[in-house]
């Protein structure tokens, strides 16, 4: 159904229509922000990058340990992050917490597609090979592993090829 809609709308694809089709658009904010408000996201990114490095989740060695079930570390990190996230979202919902701009926080629902299975497996292969998911690739480059710039460019190329052949893949 979604697939057909995409094809029909190809010529008149407005931004809104593309946006309504998937959950890749993470900006739920309706009011416009001045350019300097991006400093908030830069600082958040810096904090996230420091945490990723200090807890070694960007390490190829740690990823190999995880997939060989030889250490609890990665499971502990992801598990406790999820528990913290669940509690946080419940608090936001129960107490109807607003954003700094006073907007209501609404979370998009994820739609099931076969892509989560096929794409998930393919990403799993790549994760074990590079020892990196998309966030950690950027942190790895920051640590001085400059060859990971090539991995990043290749990941961008992978995303681009997906966009190119997306309509032909089972969804």
């Amino acid at each position, binding site marked *: 159904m979604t697939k057909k809609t995409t094809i029909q709308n190809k010529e008149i694809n407005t931004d809104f229509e593309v946006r309504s089709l*998937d959950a890749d*658009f*993470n*900006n739920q*904010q309706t009011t416009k922000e001045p350019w300097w408000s*991006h400093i*908030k996201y*830069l600082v958040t*990114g810096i*904090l*996230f*990058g420091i945490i*990723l*490095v*200090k807890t*070694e989740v*960007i390490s*190829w*060695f740690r990823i190999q340990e995880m*997939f060989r079930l*030889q250490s*609890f*570390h990665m499971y502990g990190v992801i598990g406790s*992050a999820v528990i913290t*996230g*669940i509690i*946080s979202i419940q608090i936001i919902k129960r107490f109807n917490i607003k*954003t700094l*701009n006073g907007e209501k*926080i609404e*979370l998009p629902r*994820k739609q*099931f597609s076969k*892509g989560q*299975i096929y*794409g*998930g*497996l*393919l*990403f799993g*292969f790549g994760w*074990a*090979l*590079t020892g990196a*998911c998309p966030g950690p690739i*950027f*942190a*790895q480059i*920051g*640590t*001085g*592993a400059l060859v990971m710039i*090539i991995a*990043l460019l290749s990941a961008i*190329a*992978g*995303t*681009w090829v997906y*966009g190119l052949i997306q309509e032909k*893949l089972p969804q």
Partner: protein
Amino acid sequence: MIEFLKQPWAWYISGPLIGLMVPLLLIIGNKVFGISSSLRHICAACLPAKIPFFSYEWKKEIWNIVLVAGILIGGFIATQLLLNNQPVQINPKLVTELSGYGITDYHSLVPAQLFNFQQLFTLKGFILIVVGGFLVGFGTRYAGGCTSGHSIMGLSNLQLPSLIATICFMIGGFIMANFVLPFILTL
């Protein structure tokens, strides 16, 4: 304090901090935590090529590109100021296994013996860096998210598709690390 920060951080410290990224981004700007979408926005900004998948107002998602730029800077700061130059401590079984492939240097988080510009031009390095990177970019977009968007954000919001995606990430990684990678490392 600085000495404490220089130690590798335990999972029960860093895990909750990573989880707090979810409410932090929501509260400061109604942003949903997700990283792999930044790769799509980079494509949309640099090489949309009239592909419908990349034809959207990417400027609205610049915050996501700023976020990943921050991650890169954070990686730099942590390495320059907060690293203690101790080798990465991993399970002795893995140390034994990896030494069989000639991997003995644990001084950097990204193994210097595998990920360098000389290795890039060997078959092994090409598979690890270029093929691996391609699969990360292709797979995350096909799955509609990565470890952050599905495994942390999606699971935090109790989304079943995210659970399915996370299980598939783990199955894929498990197969690759245990059954295919040992062969690749002998190349």
